[in-house]
């Protein structure tokens, strides 16, 4: 999976590169509009991570250029502008998704995976993790070939964990993923705990291994080992 990261802020860029590589992506980088334009013209990417505020241009113009070519490349807009209007403009121009800075890397990961999944297989795909199989389009989960019934939030939680295998997920990231990013995490730690407890119980009832680890004081992690 090849990603183009368009981000002008060096410190954020290097951290994003590191996180994306850990997530198993091949990452190329553009630090400004010109570089980014050249790269999207020359190469093909599964997804472009696009910062809107670039020193020499507006990311929205790059989005327009991409869409004009009816490229199959997915676009995830990341912007510090946080204007609700930016979001609308980006999505109207054909961006697949929008993330306001600052964001959780795990959330970025989950969104990125969802975009690539949709674009690559037109939905006809499934995720496999050890003894788990998930069909995201049908929202179906199987453990060892047996169907698993989950509530909506439990399913969302499982999918979020599956998008970030081996990554420590903070409670804040999980809470905001489940309830929208305007939810104060402090209010919601108790429900994360409840949902996780239920999810674990259901998985164990079907004989799945306990691969959801609690990281004390931090959050949770889907253990790949």
């Amino acid at each position, binding site marked *: 999976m090849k990603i183009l990261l368009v981000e002008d*802020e060096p*410190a*954020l860029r290097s*951290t*994003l590169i*590191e*996180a994306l590589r*850990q997530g198993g992506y091949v990452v190329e980088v553009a630090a400004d509009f010109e570089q980014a334009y050249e790269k999207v013209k020359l190469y093909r990417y599964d997804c472009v991570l696009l910062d809107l505020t670039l020193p020499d241009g507006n990311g929205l113009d790059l989005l327009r250029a991409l869409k004009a070519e009816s490229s199959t490349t997915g676009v995830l807009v990341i912007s*510090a*502008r*946080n*204007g*609700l*209007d930016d*979001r*609308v403009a980006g999505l109207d121009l054909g961006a697949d998704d929008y993330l*306001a*800075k*600052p*964001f*959780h*890397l*795990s959330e970025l990961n989950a969104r990125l995976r969802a975009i690539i999944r949709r674009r690559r297989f037109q939905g006809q795909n499934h995720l496999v993790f050890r003894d788990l199989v998930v069909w995201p389009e049908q929202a179906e989960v199987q453990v060892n070939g047996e169907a698993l019934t989950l509530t909506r*939030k439990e399913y969302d939680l499982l999918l979020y964990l599956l998008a970030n295998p081996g*990554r*420590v997920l*903070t*409670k*804040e*990231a999980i809470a905001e993923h*489940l*309830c*929208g990013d*305007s*939810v*104060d*995490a*402090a*209010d*919601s730690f*108790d*429900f994360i705990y*409840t*949902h996780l407890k239920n999810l674990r119980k259901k998985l164990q009832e079907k004989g799945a291994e306990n691969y959801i680890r609690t*990281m*004390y*004081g*931090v*959050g949770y992690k889907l253990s790949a080992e």
Partner: protein
Amino acid sequence: MRLLPATTRYYVLLSAGLFAVGSGVLYVGINRAVRNEVGEQLQNHRQELVARVAAGQPLPEPVFRQQYVVSTRPRPLGYSDTVLLDPTEGELVPHRQLTFRVARAGQLPVWVTLRKSLVETDELLAATVGSMLAVMALLLLGIVLLHRYLSARLWAPFRHTLAQLRAYDLQQHQPLSLPASAIEEFAELNQALTHLSRRLVADYESLREFTANAAHETQTPLAIMQAQLEQLLQVPALADDAAAAPLVANLYGATRRLSRLHQALGLLSRIENGQYTEAVPLDLAALIEEKAEQLAPLLEARGLAPHLQLAPAPPRWLHPGLADSLLHNLLHNAIRHNLPGGDVTVRLSATALEVSNPGPAVSGDPARFFERFRKHNAASESPGLGLSIVQHICTYYGFGLAYEFTPAGARHTLRVTFGPDREPGSPVLHATAELAGG
């Protein structure tokens, strides 16, 4: 006390004093003038009599006993005052008399007393004071009427200025526009006030810009901090130290809170800037259901029952982001200040949206609940901007917002009353356009 009655009071006091002194002077003056005049007349009569006697004619016989008395015995000479009883009126009347000696040839001299009635003192006094009082009354009436006229006419610009000041709202980002008055004092006042309001607007603008810029500029460093802290959490070495990971996680949480705070402040200043002019028709009932679904985990965790009573209503023209923020903050507020096992009731009708929840009575002025950084509980991690955002959105769209506490059942209710639906893209504030124009 109003200015004009106050000045009138001093006018009245001064004129009363002046009139008292004036009445005294007038009385004394008139009295003296009358006596002088009477004395002169008596002198004239005397000369006439003396001339007559010198011409050898006899003294006339007294006709009016009181005015002309002839005595053969000596009497004190010169002017003197006396009081005689007027038999017809039965009153004592003051008289001025002149006594002189008339030497007649070949006869014994006689003493002649000529008298003339003086005006009665009381009458004089009454006339003087009466006329003075009448004049004074007229004058005071004149002053009062004049002041009434002046206050209606001359003070009109002042009252106009006052009304404008009362209605002045800094949020509209407009300096005062006061007319130039023909009266110099008012013109100066208006000028000073206009100047002051211009400075206020400028200061407010720069403060607002500062807040917006600060909120925006902090997002990038916060994004770096948050991303790097999250990466730090992935470092395997951190798992070996039980104390280290929670430290980083706390830092991470704090960074998140800070960025949330800045987002809220940024939202507030953008609403104030009138940046959300776009509007689309929104089905509020569907939005509320969606929000309730989104917040379901929070409701469940606290054992709160959502009661949605959503009457079908025509779509409203709102900015989707603001509508989302409005509903989110209303619901979140109802969840946060609820009792365990309580409920969150949302009532939507064509004219109003009502969110109510049970909760302990809160002290303090309800109007202050909408202030920024207002917290019910000081230890709360929430910055206390939710209701302030709700209020700003309501003001922006011209909606009414009211808080109510019903002691029976201890329910808190927040009611948003919709105004008439406006044309899309014409919110209450036209701040940016007006600023550019003015």
